[in-house]
């Protein structure tokens, strides 16, 4: 029996505005409970919403970036339900007429092919508050700081066919919203949340199976595992004669399973209707053109340009354009160096990345600037130091000991390129190791490496390796 999985993802991205979507309270993360919940966010009697221009602009940017139609006229609707973290008893969202309509995102699969995933729509809505379940005499505590934070809900077509595709789509989307500067992408803080709709069907069956919704997956790893678990659960269920129930489930990462949500079994009747406190959002050509003009270079375009402009491999270009900051850093390094894109790529993806990972920093927090790195690479380029010594210099750069030149000077790391100086060292090494010399001349070629090592050791690593190889080879010949 061959099964096919059908997955659609609904992603809620918190928009990185200063203030809330319908009020002037701050959206900053981590404040004391209810210190950023103004009258509007609390749903006091008599309060009214007014739309944040920046939220609208960010939504439009997203729509343009995914090649979607941006609606010139969209409408806010009330989604009515009761929950303590929803102060008005309704969420202001968009229903029949969302601000962003059909678009798409291309994802790269593991086998090197790419797939276009349809995006049905994206709309603006307000976030709810938070429930804290620590015991307050058997009660829950409600913090409404988050209530009113702008969200962009992005709904994919059910085009995804595996957990891996779902994760690839989610990562691509995550990269996109961070690139656009409309979302900080911080999944631990809840800036980027994913709900997955999963169903299975027999291969070839044109109808969709009943789907279950898995809510609030807040890491790529969880998304992959939750989907995989759910697929198996549904297949097992059907194969053993059962039926998949349309329901909402939560993923439990500790148990590694999805569970039905208690108390939410009844289908909610949200009674959507246009919010009478808000007027239709009308975006003219000027507004949309201004948003378009402010679009940064997008990931796919940047990657392609890196391949063409810097002669990088597709893989390298992908790594270097993973974030705008990293791409900018790389380009600044090449510019400061005046060339050598491959050398720069190796160092950014190699040593720099390693040090960043070790310290759990991202490129924005690198203590070594692009200009400083270029300064180091220049000294490799002009043979002042060897690649190996450069690693030592880099470590000192990272520790904040100054620029490359200052470090090289202070530590006396200049490469020895004077032929006679190197010859002298070689002579000394050969003189000190007669046995090995005899063995080498007798045919033990492997010992070449030994002699190189000794020369490097005696010269404290500073002898130019290429010259050492050449001169040593000659001298050993005898």
């Amino acid at each position, binding site marked *: 029996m061959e099964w096919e999985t059908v997955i659609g993802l609904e992603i809620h991205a918190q928009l990185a505005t200063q203030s809330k979507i319908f009020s002037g309270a701050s959206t900053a993360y981590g404040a004391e409970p209810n210190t950023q919940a103004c009258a509007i966010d609390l749903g006091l009697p008599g309060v009214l919403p*007014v739309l944040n221009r920046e939220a609208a602009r960010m939504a439009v940017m997203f729509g343009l970036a995914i090649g979607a139609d941006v609606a010139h006229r969209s409408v806010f609707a009330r989604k009515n339900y009761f929950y303590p973290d929803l102060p008005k008893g309704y969420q202001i969202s968009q229903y029949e007429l969302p601000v962003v309509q059909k678009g798409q995102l291309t994802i790269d699969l593991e086998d090197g092919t790419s797939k276009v995933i349809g995006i049905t729509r994206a709309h603006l809505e307000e976030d709810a508050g938070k429930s804290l379940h620590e015991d307050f005499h058997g009660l829950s505590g409600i913090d409404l700081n988050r209530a009113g934070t702008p969200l962009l809900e992005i709904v994919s077509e059910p085009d995804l066919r595996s957990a891996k595709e779902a994760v690839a789509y989610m990562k691509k989307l995550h990269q996109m919203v961070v690139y656009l500067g409309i979302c900080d992408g911080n999944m631990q803080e809840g800036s980027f949340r994913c709900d997955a709709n999963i169903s299975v069907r027999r291969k070839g069956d044109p109808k969709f199976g009943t789907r279950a919704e898995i809510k609030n997956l807040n890491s790529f790893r969880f998304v992959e595992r939750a989907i995989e678990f759910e697929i198996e659960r549904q297949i097992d269920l059907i194969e053993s004669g059962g039926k998949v129930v349309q329901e909402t489930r939560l993923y439990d990462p500790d148990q590694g399973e999805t569970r039905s949500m208690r108390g939410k079994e009844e289908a909610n009747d949200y009674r959507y209707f246009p919010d009478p406190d808000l007027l239709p959002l009308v975006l003219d050509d000027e507004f949309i053109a201004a948003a378009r003009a402010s679009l940064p270079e997008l990931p796919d375009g940047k990657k392609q340009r890196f391949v063409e402009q810097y002669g990088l491999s597709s893989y390298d270009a992908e790594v270097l354009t993973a974030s705008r900051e990293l791409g900018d850093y790389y380009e600044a390094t090449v510019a400061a160096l005046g060339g050598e894109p491959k050398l720069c790529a190796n160092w950014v993806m190699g040593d720099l990345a390693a040090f960043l990972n070790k310290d759990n920093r991202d490129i924005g927090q690198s203590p070594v600037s692009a200009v400083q790195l270029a300064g180091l690479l220049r000294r490799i380029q002009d043979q002042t130091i060897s690649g190996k010594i450069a690693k030592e210099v880099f470590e000192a750069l990272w520790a904040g000991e100054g620029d490359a030149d200052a470090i090289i000077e202070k530590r006396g790391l200049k490469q020895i390129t004077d032929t006679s100086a190197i010859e002298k060292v070689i002579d000394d090494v050969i003189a000190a190791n007669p046995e090995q010399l005899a063995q080498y001349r007798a045919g033990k070629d492997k010992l070449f490496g030994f002699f190189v090592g000794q020369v490097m050791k005696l010269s404290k690593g500073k002898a130019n390796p290429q010259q050492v190889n050449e001169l040593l080879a000659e001298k050993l010949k005898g």
Partner: protein
Amino acid sequence: MNSSSPTAMHDKTIAQLSASLAAGEFSSEELTRVFLARIEQFNPGLNAFITVTAEPALAQARAADQRRRQGEAGPLAGVPIAHKDIFCTNGVRTSCGSRMLDRFIAPYDATVVEKLNAAGVVMLGKTNMDEFAMGSSNETSFYGPVRNPWDLDAVPGGSSGGSAAAVAARLTPGATGTDTGGSIRQPAALCGITGIKPTYGRVSRWGMIAYASSLDQGGPMARTAEDCALLLGAMAGFDPRDSTSVDRPVPDYVALLDQPLAGLKIGLPKEYFGEGLDSEVARVVEAAIAEYRKLGAETVDISLPNSQLAIPAYYVIAPAECSSNLARFDGVRYGHRCENPKDLLDLYTRSRAEGFGAEVTRRILVGTFALSAGYYDAYYLKAQQIRRLISDDFRRAFAQVDVIAGPTSPTVAFNIGEKVDDPITMYLSDIYTIAVNLAGLPGLSLPVGFVGQRPVGLQLIGNYFAEDRLLNVAHRYQQVTDWHQRVPAGF
């Protein structure tokens, strides 16, 4: 009373009080004390006030007197008014006539309150109203019914019944009201005073507790059109806190009161003079219209063919919007909370059941039903389509006429308790006023006579933002008649 004796302070209009205060005839503090004393004397019999803010009023009065001494007093400075208890008043209970908000101390001021405060008024207190503005008789209030000063067995109308009764009984020279389906105009008519519901968007709804968001408007209630012009001038204006507020300059309503009526075309919809209209009321209204002809106006017979659909459409749209607007009353952040809720569901259902009265409950249920799955198209969508038809009727009419006139209410005030058992009969008393809210047009009611002891009101409907015209048309009538000067016996 000897007609040459000076008018008592409480009998003066706002315009007269403004002049007297400016002339130093008395201070605002003295004036305020007069009204506070009258409230203390007469309110127990009328129940027009829910909250009386005596000490703060005197403080405001003294502050106004001080400003006057410094030469900084505008026309409304030191004038006492009352606010319908639907407007949030910072630090003062704002009950909306409901047990749900019986102990709710508003933590901020409505824009209307702010603006009138800035004009220097003195707030005497908060007036009684139908619960959450849902009613046409002020009988659904948690605080008990209000009595009509003209006949204590009669209702004052609703939902702004407290404001209307208070003005009619001269417990306050003016008051604010709100109007969603007639709640300023109908009580004004039943209490023999003047009231105007402005164009939708003319007055800010910030801080005005919402009943039906696309229909609600706040407006002034006083004895004369001139007084309403003074108050409206202070209340109206663009408010960036209200997305439905219109950015349009506020005309000087007072300056525009005296325009001559010659050539004014008054439309008389045949639907407003047919079945359902009490014949005595009809006679009084016809006499008023005759007076307008004498003033130089020309009457034109018109038709508003979809008039009959206004009530059905309203009783879908208003309940639908209110069912959503009132969802915030859940006992969590403010308002009534039931004792010892056993779980979340109990907290919600019991707090709300205890907090809301029967009429509010009915309308929430109807509204919830109208929006629920499978019924949206047949009810809510259909009602919004009818709304369009009704607006189009008015649009066509205003191509032919300048204002539309008719009775405000099909009957005079009915007796307290007479209609409470049959909500539908109650709903039908809004037959002439409701369409105006659906279209968002301005509407005014002015007193034009009596049937027995009970007042009759004439409704004037204007085109969008024609409040100045309505006030002018009402004012000219009040210059040649004295219905607006009549005083209910014993007050």
